């Protein structure tokens, strides 16, 4: 551990035109994941075959769970004459084979560029199939991959689902929870928290079961679990919406507020004690109940752990990258345990990242980190080398960076392609903070131990 306070080190941001090793994915992938968290849903890409296959492969490598993404499989003639007929044929085939409750249709760069009017095609399809029974509900979202990242795609899909399905009417007393894209374990935890507060929660999406299911005797065409359609329809009648994501703008939550007047509470992702406290305070307010003892105890153990481990992490310098809202949450957590984020980077371009990081760290950090949007791993790597970090925090695509810097990589978020169990990583709540804290602290201890010439085996 360094004995002197580290000198201020800033790095120069490079400015390149080409992208090398992107720190983002494309919009339709996010839309597919969002649709996959709806009960009985099949994600459907209106585009060429490769998109669906690549995304399935990418998602499977994280979850090791089946994910079927249907495709219009457009060929050259469809690109010239329009993809409408293939879209309709594809929908019919998916409806026949999967018997889904919902097909979530996302466009791709191909169909956006040729100007396919999906809304019109779906209108025609509804006319063509009038009187048919058992047809799935169709939801569509425009996700051209040349605009935004997978997170824009994810939130656009949630917004589209809510805008196209939710209805108004008499209040139900339910609480809408729009957590954004978190791990299956996180969704599970959130559901439990809502239940423990006695709240009737409608969480959208819910990937806790659909992308982390049990071993089965017969293959399920569509994996069980996910947000029920009935719950989505009723979201316009809930008494409040809680949405995680300080960098978001127009979302499912804003649609519900504007269209149906559902009060909208936007919070940061509850990563670490302070952001989780904010979430729990809101739940106390909405439920009229104190935080259940189970969570009070969890928090107590967490504080105790922070104290036990504080000196192993204090003053360490971290590079944090990934999806913007997750980066904000992670920075809040790292700052509160005494780690200094020195570089926060995202492939996203919300324009709000720096401000959002400052909002959760300004009172704790002696010096604000350098925060950049629109970064790729080549740029992150160049800057990181000047910043001499002690750890790297993000998804597994930062492994080459951590390897080059000879520092531990703390794997969080999506994707985790080089370990099993990415879907079981817990980030949220006191339990998530506990897992993160133990992982980070032990990584620091192990690094020191491994680097030690003595090979001691006592902390």
């Amino acid at each position, binding site marked *: 551990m360094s004995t002197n306070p580290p000198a201020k080190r800033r790095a120069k941001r490079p400015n390149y035109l080409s992208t090398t090793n992107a720190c*983002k*994915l494309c919009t339709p992938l996010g839309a597919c994941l969002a649709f996959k968290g709806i009960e009985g849903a099949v994600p459907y890409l209106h585009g060429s075959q490769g998109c669906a296959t690549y995304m399935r*492969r990418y998602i*499977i490598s994280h979850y090791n769970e089946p994910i079927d993404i249907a495709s219009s499989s457009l060929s050259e003639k469809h690109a010239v004459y329009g993809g409408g007929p293939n879209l309709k044929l594809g929908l019919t085939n998916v409806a026949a084979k999967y018997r889904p409750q919902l097909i979530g249709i996302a466009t791709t*760069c191909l169909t956006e560029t040729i100007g396919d009017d999906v809304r019109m095609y779906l209108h025609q399809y509804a006319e063509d199939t009038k009187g048919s029974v058992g047809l799935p509900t169709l939801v569509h979202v425009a996700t051209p991959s*040349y605009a935004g990242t997978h997170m824009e795609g994810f939130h656009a899909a949630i917004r589209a689902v809510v805008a196209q399905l939710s209805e108004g009417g008499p209040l139900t007393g339910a609480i809408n929870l729009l957590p954004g894209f978190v791990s299956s374990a996180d969704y599970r935890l959130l559901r439990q928290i809502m239940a423990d507060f006695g709240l009737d929660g409608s969480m959208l999406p819910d990937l806790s079961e659909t992308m982390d299911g049990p*071993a089965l005797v017969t293959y399920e065409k569509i994996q069980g679990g996910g947000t029920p359609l009935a719950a989505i329809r009723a979201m316009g009648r809930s008494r409040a919406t809680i949405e995680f994501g300080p960098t978001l703008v127009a979302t499912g939550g804003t649609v519900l507020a504007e269209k149906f007047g559902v009060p909208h509470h936007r919070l940061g992702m509850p990563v670490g004690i302070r952001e989780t406290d904010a979430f729990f305070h809101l739940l106390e307010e909405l439920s009229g109940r104190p935080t259940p003892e189970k969570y009070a105890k969890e928090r107590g153990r967490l504080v105790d752990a922070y104290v036990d481990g504080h000196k192993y992490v204090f003053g360490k310098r971290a590079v944090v990258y990934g999806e913007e809202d997750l980066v904000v949450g992670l920075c809040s957590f790292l700052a509160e345990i005494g780690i200094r984020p020195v570089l926060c980077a995202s492939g996203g371009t919300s324009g709000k990242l720096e401000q959002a990081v400052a909002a959760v760290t300004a009172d704790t950090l002696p010096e604000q980190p350098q925060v950049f949007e629109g970064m790729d791993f080549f740029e992150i790597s160049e800057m990181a080398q000047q910043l001499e970090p002690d750890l790297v925090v993000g998804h597994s695509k930062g492994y080459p960076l951590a390897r080059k810097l000879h520092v531990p990589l703390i794997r969080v978020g999506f994707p985790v392609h080089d370990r099993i169990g990415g879907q079981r990583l817990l980030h949220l709540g006191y339990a998530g903070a506990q897992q993160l804290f133990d992982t980070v602290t032990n990584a620091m201890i192990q690094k020191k131990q491994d680097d030690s010439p003595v090979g001691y085996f006592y902390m």
Partner: protein
Amino acid sequence: MDATALKEREGQIVVKGEAPFAIVCNKDSLAGAVSQRACVFCGSRVVLYPIADAVHLVHGPIGCAVYTWDIRGALSSGPELHRLSFSTDLQERDVIFGGEKKLLAALRELIERHAPKAAFVYSTCIVGIIGDDLEAVCRQVEAEYGIPVIPVKSEGFKGNKRAGYQAACDALFRLIGTGDTTGISPYSLNILGDFNLAGEIWMIRDYYRQMGIEVVANITGDGRVADIRRAHGAALNVVQCSGSTMRLADMMEEKYGIPSLRVSYFGIEDMAEALYDIARFFKDPAIMERTKAIVEAEVKQLAVALEPYRQALAGRKAAIYVGGSFKAFSLVKAFRLLDMQVVMVGSQTGTREEYEELEAITDPGTIIVDDANPLELTSFLTEKEVDIFVGGVKERPIACKLGIGFCDHNHERKEPLAGFAGMLNFAREVHASVMSPVWQFVPRKKGAEPTR
């Protein structure tokens, strides 16, 4: 099977022995059928990607580049430029106003930064639509920097993966013939269609070295631009994974008169046959002697090492679903060597001839399938009570969810499965999956607790 297959797909599924063999294949994937296939771009990308000293720039929105970042375990003994994922990351304004300027600037930047020996520029779906003139941009950059800058016509929607192989072969063909061939031995060959997954091409090259044959170019595993440029000086093309590079061999035969041999490096039988075929081609008794010595030594060693695996695995059932069907032949034979029974075999992009050959070497009752989808695959796996399924990443969760053993025989594998040593690794992999005690807990086994 009716319950699982869409009517339009019935011709693409055949059971050996039920009727005269006729399979429908090489057709476009059906909309909405969730094909395991990828696209033209994917085909080109996987073939060219292992060329380690070239810049591989994907011209398009970010997805195509990011999903293929270091996608294969293709190893390099030197430069590792191929492991970087370069993209022009086209944005909305580029789609509206054209992406040529951005492409030009990106190419200059990357060439100046990395000093590559060549650059490949891949077109993606929308490049084909917005009409960027890749040829012109590449020509200009080629003139500026004096290295080959080659457009790859890989717009995703213009066919399937096979069309992508063709586009890759076309790109390679532009390189070949531009290098100096002096000093190449008359006993020389190019290795086509091995991608050096887990270092496989190094094992193969070592066999050739021991036989006394010079390898001119690896196409494309551990590939180098300079080697490929002089590949037309080799006496023979040895083609593995024929689906991807056979076409290149044909083009080289036509233009440079280089004959080719189709081989497979998987399994003892095919590996030995490959080396003997090559030795026979050169008609040199000394080479044949050395080849015999290699094969005998390897086989002798292997037979002993394989025996415990064979005893443990005999009678177990296997299913195979791979990209190209040529690999499926070798897998069928490899399973037979272990006394295992292949009950299903299929591929994404097999040709009629290949399926006919598969039909000839499989047992009656074996399901043969073209361009299958997850629902079909699961029904075959359960119906046939399979013990191990061989496939790629997309097939893995299907097997796992049903509690069936799995062997990854695709791009991501980290264990070499080619060559004689590869056969032993293969047996180990199959054994490690089939013999695991975890199957006692899966619901598929009678008596286990149901989980849902």
